[in-house]
């Protein structure tokens, strides 16, 4: 009995040893975002302090983070929607016609270093006067979102029994009709998984936006990066900005936890 209790406590401590290091940077970021510069540079680091909202005020009022927030959302949502439009039929075809090569081809887009297309894009987009345009940003982010969607959805479609479409087709529906009215409606969980992940990886993207966006279409990761390199390091405000950037992805993850685990462990890792 006692041995069992001790084992239980030991196990709990082990779990704690896993959870705390993972969680700690988030907690530190969150507390620091409520500290004044004076509290942050204090040595030894202060655990007790009077919290302030001035950092958030600075980030949203002076630094215009709301605009970058909007930009990130516009680009992420557009890229994901367009990718769904292209990706769902492709994924269906890969799943039903066993197009292994095609699947590899699209997977390669996910594996290639982004910078190897970025440099040509940069030249082409400049020539077309598309630098700092939403079109350029959305197209580039689609190269992140499309492979994720195709990759996750083709595995998902494979799990849907083919009999469902076949019975619809026996009733006279065409295959494309069956795809639209039979397969898609029950593919909800897969779509949620792929959309969540694709959106998060577009949201987090730094390299493409760093090169292709300027003032007008600047996204959040660039805003926080510039914030650090332009102003002298105002740690509190930077941490507030970090919280603001990560909050949506974290909230999405919490809501769709089950799906996200599935998607990530399916191999759709880092964009």
């Amino acid at each position: 009995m006692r041995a069992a209790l001790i084992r239980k406590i030991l196990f709990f401590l082990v779990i704690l040893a896993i959870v705390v290091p993972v969680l700690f940077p988030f907690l530190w970021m969150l507390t620091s975002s409520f500290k004044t510069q004076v509290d942050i540079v204090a040595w030894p680091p202060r655990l007790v302090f009077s919290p302030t909202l001035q950092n958030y005020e600075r980030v949203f009022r002076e630094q215009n983070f709301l605009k970058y927030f909007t930009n990130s959302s516009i680009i992420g949502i557009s890229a994901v929607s367009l990718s769904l439009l292209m990706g769902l039929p492709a994924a269906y075809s890969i799943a039903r016609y066993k197009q292994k090569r095609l699947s590899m081809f699209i997977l390669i887009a996910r594996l290639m270093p982004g910078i190897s297309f970025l440099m040509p894009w940069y030249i082409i987009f400049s020539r077309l006067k598309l630098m700092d345009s939403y079109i350029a940003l959305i197209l580039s982010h689609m190269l992140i979102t499309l492979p994720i969607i195709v990759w996750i959805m083709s595995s998902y479609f494979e799990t849907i029994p083919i009999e469902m479409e076949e019975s619809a087709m026996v009733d006279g529906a065409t295959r494309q009709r069956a795809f639209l009215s039979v397969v898609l409606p029950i593919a909800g969980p897969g779509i949620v998984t792929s959309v969540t992940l694709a959106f998060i990886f577009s949201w987090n993207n730094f390299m493409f936006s760093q090169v292709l966006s300027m003032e007008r279409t600047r996204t959040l990761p660039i805003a926080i990066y510039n914030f650090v390199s332009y102003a002298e390091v105002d740690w509190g405000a930077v941490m507030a900005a970090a919280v603001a950037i990560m909050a949506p992805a974290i909230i999405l993850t919490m809501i769709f936890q089950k799906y996200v685990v599935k998607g990530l462990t399916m191999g759709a890792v880092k964009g």
Partner: protein
Amino acid sequence: MAIKRPKGSFLEKNLHIIFPLPAVVFVIVMMLFPVLYTLFLSFTNWNLTSGMPLSIVFLKSYQKVLREPRFIAALGRTFSFTALAVAVETILGMIVALILNREFRGKGFTKLIMLLPLVSTPVAIGIVFNLFYDPTIGLANFVLTRFGLPRQAWTGSAATVIPSLAIVDIWQWTPMIALILLSGLASLSSEPYESARVDGASEWQIFWRITLPMVTPTLLTALILRTIDALKTFDIIYAMTGGGPGYASETLNVMAFKYSFEYFRMGQASVILVFLFMLVLFMSLLIVRMRKSLEL
């Protein structure tokens, strides 16, 4: 279960071509074509700032880059960073997965926590770790001094910058390996375990003889994917050190970025890109081969 007999209208007959077509065209235009363009540029000496038109110099840019000690160092660094990060992530990830592979209260919550690093914005994470690492006000040195250890410069010194950056990568991606392995472990059948226990095998023997071989396919896929991503790590390095101090944390990706967008030496930047590209392509082919031989 593949469909054999397409029938009906043109669209229906050619569904397997028409459905994937938009995606394929998109990837060709946005990826294949740029990659070929990069390959072409690598045979030129194009420099945006020289004011001279591009001219084809064949392998001269390759010669120049390969002779550059900075390139050789960056190549080596790319490998050492990757090896360090991925090795630690695999071992830690395996341990964590083995610990979590049982039923306990709060398992769902633990898994949720483990997801958070994977979905966090790398740039922001890098900046948070910069606050930890700050030699004067950072928590990392505070902890060290508490334990009576000397202060470190962390990302501020050539000797410690790579491990310091690897720690960030490890923090962010160990949970992913753990989660993948966990789902792999959960799908194993319990039969071999039972018979091994009947035979009186120790836990350690069970791990080496049964668990590890059975989970190897999953582990290898995770490992290769992670290796590819680690080879192209950019965000945290660029945001935390910009490749510094000096070039002490400059990997191929960072170097290529600087050559393209800071020095505007498009020809030579393309050479670096071709190398990075081949490296990743090689790793990707490895995946394909392994998927085939392991029937994943």
